[in-house]
């Protein structure tokens, strides 16, 4: 049973604030650009995706060559929900 997308977005916000050490990112809008507006860098992105893999079992790095899922928190949540129940048939 997977979580609804909005709940995943809310959790991702907390994870993002933790891995970057920036509590203010816990209030980042779901549509804000992670690289462009939140100032996420390659180290922060790698830490975020590591936590995503631990928490949801979704390996974004392996399944998304261009890492488009990392555009915003909403796109990341959508990607997680789409891939969470294992690889589609």
């Amino acid at each position: 049973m997977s979580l609804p997308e909005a709940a995943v977005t809310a959790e991702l916000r907390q994870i993002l604030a933790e891995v970057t050490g920036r509590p203010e990112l816990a209030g980042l809008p779901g549509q804000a650009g992670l690289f462009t507006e939140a100032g996420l860098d390659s180290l922060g992105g790698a830490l975020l995706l590591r936590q995503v893999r631990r928490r949801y079992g979704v390996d974004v790095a392996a399944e998304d060559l261009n890492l488009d899922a990392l555009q915003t928190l909403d796109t990341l949540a959508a990607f997680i929900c789409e891939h969470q129940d294992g690889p589609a048939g």
Partner: protein
Amino acid sequence: MAPERRSAYSRSPSGDPGNTQASPPAGTKPVKCVIWDIDNTLISGVYLESPDDPPPADPELAAVLRELAGRGILHALASRNPPEAADYVRRATGAQFAAAECGWGSKAAAIGRIAAGLGIGTDAIAFVDDDMLERAEVSAALPEVLVLTPEDAAEAPQWPGFSPPVITAEARRRGELYAAMQRRQAEAAAFGGSREEFLRRVGTRIAIAPAAAGDLPRLHELAVRTHQLNSAAQPLTLAEFGGLLKSAAHVVATAALADDFADDGTVGAAVLERNGPGQWLAPAVMVSCRALGRGVLDALLAWLCRTAARGGASALAVPCLVTERNLPMRLALAAAGMRAEPGAVAADGRALFRRDLGGDLPGLPEWVSAWEGPA
């Protein structure tokens, strides 16, 4: 006891009849970090038996510490002792330790944490302990680690794995630079703002400059040693770099990094291949993992885009190996607006990430001083 020593010998160049010297033919694979036990290894006794007046450093191994550090090999501690023991060993040996794990847990786990923290594979680690059981535990859990007795370690400077072919200025200072890295990370953890604000606050300076013949050993070292921030499938050889420096069709740039904590020297490099008004190629982009999170890769990618655009290129392409290990490289490519055709990973494991050079190009922060590129 033969079984204890087997791990040290297992790396010997077996089957090579030319290599039958009397000394242990162990450790041909390059060792990047030696993790040391403290009691009856680096000190001549047991720390906790007299913590107020601990035993002195073992003079032979203290000399080995200095010799290996001078070759760019890192040292770390893994000890069943309180953290004060590590401080004491630092003073007693005068050595820099890039990491110290003091506690009562498994040493194999401690080695794993040290390797992860330093961004080094466990296959590039040597572990020295006088205790047979500790050595056995580490050998069983991490067979790729070179496990040594203190007696083995005393001879290690003569072994090939401890003798890097080139020792650059950066390598000689590696222990010092990792110690600065720990202080920087502690300050970053306590800092509230964005990473960019932190980089500005600690006086980060990045200089991108044309590579010269004197940079060749360091270029080769970066090509061989970097993995997390390296686009290439195969490291360029010294001869290949030499050829690129002479080639009119290629531009080779180095990136040097410094801040208020340390002068890291040359930490990155990129090769750019000119192609008139068409799509230019960057066949190699690499940055030392020590510089991860300090803006060097982003600066190099922005510089590549801007230099190619200034030279009249319509697009820039970076062939990049797609692995789990170099994910930070792919993240930086994405942040620089570069994309690959989905599913287009070639047989050699690389995908071609590209972007057009019209419109807004990735910017360079004011602390980056960038070579304008060839005329």
